[in-house]
């Protein structure tokens, strides 16, 4: 199987320093790392490859120095690395990023074989949006399995995958068709240490470098700052919600009763909704 893992090079937030003289964040010299969440995706991809055979292609979009992250990924045992780098990508928000990455994944499919699974991390530690993975899935029309805690089974013949997905208050077991996109939850595995062969071949392997044009991206107005409608107006700390989701036991009551109770509960909490949504002659 062919697995594509999309990773991001991020500043190591543990080592960001404030310039003692100018009091600005010192971007220069701040060590960069692979977004820690992406490592769970990469390790899961490597495990699938080891179990089912095939190849893992690692993809990143970023400045030329992002090649360091790809080299690291190769050192962990990835088979191929693609760096999407072009000044047109500078200033991309999640919309523009997911566009560029999905185009690159399509191009990877044409060039190296259609991917069966695309992995991303749950989110990045610098942006924290968790939007790029789902954005890629939507654009490539892939089933979307987010917050996956475990991959239960893969049936390559039937083109089916079963995963466990962490959700509020429990775990869902989901079955999907392949190809699909999986965003992997943190703490679900532990990144391996590449063997000496992996390290050696990583040191020598060429990283595939694509510009926007080479990745088949034609509409540059949708790239980078020009293609990014997001504007950060304000940065603030959110207040935590105190209420937890309630669990409904489906075994004890009929679905009709449950639905009735649910509607009553919703209207009790949001009375404004009742005149709008209440239906006559129930």
């Amino acid at each position: 199987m062919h697995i594509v893992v999309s990773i991001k090079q991020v500043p190591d937030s543990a080592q960001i320093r404030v310039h003692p003289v100018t009091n600005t964040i010192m971007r220069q010299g701040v060590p960069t790392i692979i977004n820690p969440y992406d490592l769970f995706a990469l390790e899961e991809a490597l495990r699938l490859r080891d179990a089912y055979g095939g190849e893992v292609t690692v993809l990143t979009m970023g400045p030329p120095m992002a090649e360091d992250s790809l080299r690291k990924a190769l050192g962990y045992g990835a088979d191929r690395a693609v760096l999407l780098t072009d000044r047109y990508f500078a200033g991309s928000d999640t919309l523009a990023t997911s566009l560029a990455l999905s185009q690159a994944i399509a191009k990877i499919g044409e060039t190296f074989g259609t991917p069966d699974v695309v992995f991303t991390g749950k989110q990045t530690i610098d942006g924290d949006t968790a939007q790029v993975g789902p954005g890629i899935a939507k654009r490539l029309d892939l089933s979307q399995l987010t917050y996956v805690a475990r991959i239960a089974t893969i049936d390559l013949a039937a083109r089916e995958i079963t995963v466990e997905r962490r959700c509020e208050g429990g775990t869902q077991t989901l079955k999907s068709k392949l190809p699909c996109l999986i965003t992997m939850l943190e703490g679900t595995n532990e990144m391996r240490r590449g063997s000496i062969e992996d390290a050696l071949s990583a040191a020598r392997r060429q990283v595939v470098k694509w510009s926007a044009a080479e990745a088949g991206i034609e509409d540059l107005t949708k790239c980078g700052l020009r293609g990014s409608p997001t504007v950060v107006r304000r940065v603030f700390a959110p207040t935590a919600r105190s209420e937890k989701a309630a669990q409904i036991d489906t075994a004890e009551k009929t679905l009709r009763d449950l639905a009735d109770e649910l509607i009553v509960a919703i209207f009790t909490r949001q009375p404004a909704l009742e005149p709008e949504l209440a239906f006559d002659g129930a």
Partner: protein
Amino acid sequence: MINEEFDAIVIGAGMSGNAAAYTMASDGLKVLQLERGEYPGSKNVQGAIMYANMLEKIIPDFRDDAPLERHLVEQRLWVMDETSHTGIHYRSEDFNEVSPNRYTIIRAQFDKWFSRRVRQAGATLLCETTVTELVRDDKGKVIGVRTDRAGGAIYADVVVLAEGVCGLLGTRGGLRKMLTPEAVALAVKEMHFLPEEVIEQRFGVKGSEGCVIEAVGTISHDMAGLGFLYTNKESISLGIGCLVSDFTAKMESPYALLDALKNHPSIRPLIAGSEVKEYAAHLIPEGGYKAIPQLFGDGWVVVGDAAQLNNAIHREGSNLAMTSGRIAAEAIIQVKRRNDPMTKRNLALYKTMLDESFVVKDLRKYKDMPALLHNNAGNFFTTYPRLMSQAAQNFMRVDGTPKIEKERATTAAFIKARSRLGLVRDAIRLALAWR
């Protein structure tokens, strides 16, 4: 299982390892370099002063892109007591030459640059890879290494051990003895950040000019030790080091010495208002000529700090490291060209070439110095500095005492402290050790 064989494996990507790897790779040898840290320089905390000449011999155009902090135009040598310092300052416009002689550098940045050059020269570098064991054939010849990564041994004609001062691998492999506490100093250092203009003002330098202070005296609390202050672009490296054996015997702690140095009235104004961003500690080989271990054997050579090649008297280390790395590489290249095997007998060429260089010549010159200073630390690092300070103050202070009486008082103080015989003996010993 790696089927591939290398001409040489270099263990370590510091000054000596990079010099060796660069020299061999530039000559077309197939070189694999293994580094424990995340990237070259990531584990390095040296001061640091870099001597241009020794790097020029390896990379002549290094000034084009190497990360250099300041070139040194002024050196201050201080003898300190509790409240004062007596100093020799040497500053020369001649040091503002087109190709300056000495630079301050920050090793984390410098080593990254050096390593890039090594890889451009064709060597393969693996980081985060610790060599755990030397692999030998049935005759005991070193034929490769094993690492902490899965996948077995890697083989090479020769292994260059550039593993640094502790040299655990070589020690474990029986190539040399364990380091003794008398043969290593423990130096601690802080990086004090200050704006460029402030550094320029305080040290009377401009542009990329820099200044170095090196100090001995009561700051090392009766131990053989040295304090240092180096100016970088936007920071000051300030530190002090003493022999590990002395720290143990005197129950002194390194950070307390550094704290006292920072609060010394001669140092405090130089770092005032700075922000400390790093605290680091490292061992420095101090044993000198007599501590140099076996430098070569069947299938291996050892270079740099691992070979104890450090001139403690002149505080030169990285240039001896670079030079020994280069010379080891050149010896290996010669053996290789003759199609000879990398045996102990053939690799003896490295020792012969190193003996001819300044590295061993300098260390031989000061072969008795470490023991002399160590055994008489109280005299050389406390008694004399105090006497010198008193003498200087006596000379400078104008208080109506006739000059002849002042001079007599100074002489009497020296004789009282060390006796006539003691003074003569110290002078002769020092002269002999310096010779």
